[in-house]
């Protein structure tokens, strides 16, 4: 056992790794929420349900159609994104001019329905999805054992988040998106199809949740309520980071995962609550959030 200043390094790095993995999912989900919020000014309460849908879709695809993990990684986010597109077009757009609280309630109801349907069909105990063969091994590092699949999750999520950030901040498409956030009327006047961009953005944000779901399927059990508990934590993270910046959402997600991991090592009793406590502290000191621009 390697120890440093009385700390068991194996245990510490193990929890840090778990924290980074949770953080990867937090980052993907809060990134999706932030993108949707930027244009539509609504919070998608169904984001957790979409993550669950992604995991179930991967499981169903393997079970009934023999679609393997790597194909699911591409197909499932697209399919979940399509659900998002339909949801925006037929449920959210009709009430876009009402108080935003209504669209929030609508997504909440939609999430309840999805969760209810999957609970009814597959029970609440959870299904297992095996890790793809190529990633079953692991690497022995001097201070810990690093399973390949976990390393893959962290890398993949950082790459996806990074690409999304680059796309929004550096490309022309991203410029449209940012302009739409600032002033949709003016953009429409320039001849850009704003409703289409809104729909696609919603689909993209939801698709990210679907992707996170596929990635989560092999390490967490695939169950109907896997999304709802995660989503509440992600809400706290969004409040901590503020939704002013895409980069902020990603960094806060990863950072909170690490803090949670550290808490699990040093004071496990508080590991469920530490992120909510951080939120309380942030609300006291900087109510707009760490990266937020407005209250």
């Amino acid at each position, binding site marked *: 056992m390697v120890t440093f200043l009385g700390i068991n390094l194996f245990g510490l790095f193990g929890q840090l790794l778990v924290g980074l993995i949770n953080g990867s999912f937090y980052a993907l989900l809060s990134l999706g929420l932030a993108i949707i919020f930027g244009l539509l000014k609504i919070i998608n309460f169904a984001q957790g349900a979409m993550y669950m849908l992604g995991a179930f879709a991967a499981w169903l695809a393997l079970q009934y159609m023999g679609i393997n993990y790597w194909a699911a990684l591409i197909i499932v986010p697209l399919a979940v994104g399509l659900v998002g597109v339909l949801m925006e077009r037929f449920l959210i757009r009709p009430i876009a001019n009402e108080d935003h609280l209504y669209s929030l309630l*609508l997504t909440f109801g939609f999430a309840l*329905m999805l969760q*209810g349907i999957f609970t009814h069909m597959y029970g609440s105990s959870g299904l297992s999805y095996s890790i793809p063969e190529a990633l079953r091994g692991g690497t022995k590092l001097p201070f810990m054992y690093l399973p390949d699949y976990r390393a893959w999750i962290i890398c993949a999520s950082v790459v996806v988040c990074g690409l999304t950030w680059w796309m929004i901040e550096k490309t022309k498409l991203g410029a449209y998106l940012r302009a739409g956030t600032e002033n949709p009327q003016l953009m429409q006047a320039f001849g850009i199809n704003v409703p289409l961009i809104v729909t696609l953005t919603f689909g993209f944000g939801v698709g990210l949740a679907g992707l996170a779901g596929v990635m989560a399927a092999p390490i967490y059990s695939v169950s109907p309520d896997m999304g709802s508990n995660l989503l509440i934590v992600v809400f706290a993270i969004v409040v901590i980071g503020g939704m002013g910046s895409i980069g902020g959402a990603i960094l806060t997600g990863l950072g909170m995962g690490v803090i949670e991991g550290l808490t699990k090592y040093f004071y496990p009793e508080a590991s469920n609550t530490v992120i909510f406590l951080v939120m309380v502290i942030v609300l006291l000191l900087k109510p707009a959030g760490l990266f937020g621009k407005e209250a």
Partner: protein
Amino acid sequence: MKINKFYVVMLLLALVAPFFLYPVFLAKLLCFALFACAFNLMLGYVGLLSFGHAAFLGTGGYITGWLMMNSGITPELAILLGTVVSGALGALYGKLSVKREGIYFAMVTLALSQLVFFIYLQAPFTGGEDGMQGVPRGHLLGLIDLSDNMNMYYFVLAIFLFGFWLIHRTIHSPFGQVLKAIRENEPRATSLGYNVNDYKWVAFTISAALAGLAGSTKTLVFQLASLTDVHWHMSGEVVLMTLVGGVGTIFGPVVGAGVIVTMQNYLSGGELGNYIHIIMGFIFVVCVLAFRSGIVGEFQKVWKRNFG
């Protein structure tokens, strides 16, 4: 005067109802009606959607349950203390949540109530997953035996009427008028010199205390306090009750609670029990898309059009 007659009729109905329907069911209905009314004070009259009111319902329930099992005080005192603790928690949470608005307010309250959920899950006194079972109902003022369901019902009715009256009084007070002003146009209320956040905070505290009162009473009725009451599902249910009945109407939450509780009771017995969350989600979606004024709101519209 029309309204007053209506109140008298409702009161008479409530008084004779237990002779025709099961009193425990009616008491449950009244507890949820009070809970929904308390919630509606925030959503309907301040325009803030709290997604964490289960925290206050559950806190009231646990405190009252613990006191009834361990302290030997009379039920009215246990309920009073449960209400006070919920109100204190509400004051604390209110201070934090009113710093953010709109959608953020909903997220903050939801996250804070999840914090409470995890604390109760781990704290030794709540009984964790099992909850507190077999809470004695005790003797009201040391005299009236509440284990008799009829006595219990009339006690709950009295509590409900008190809560309902308090909310009615709050809404129609100068304080309530300021709340409505904040709902309609917050910057203007600020520019008129009102400290908007303080008003929101006081309203939140009242709302939380009344939700606690509902939870405390509910624990006595069912002789049970459990994690179900602090779960986010419960926070969602109270939103649904208010939405179905009519947001921002005084009777809406009562009607909504009646509809949802009756539906749940009916479904949980039959073969549709498994579909309960699907059905509730569906009602949510339909209400938001096509029925935003709720039952009482729609009724008022029709009434105004034809008789107003």
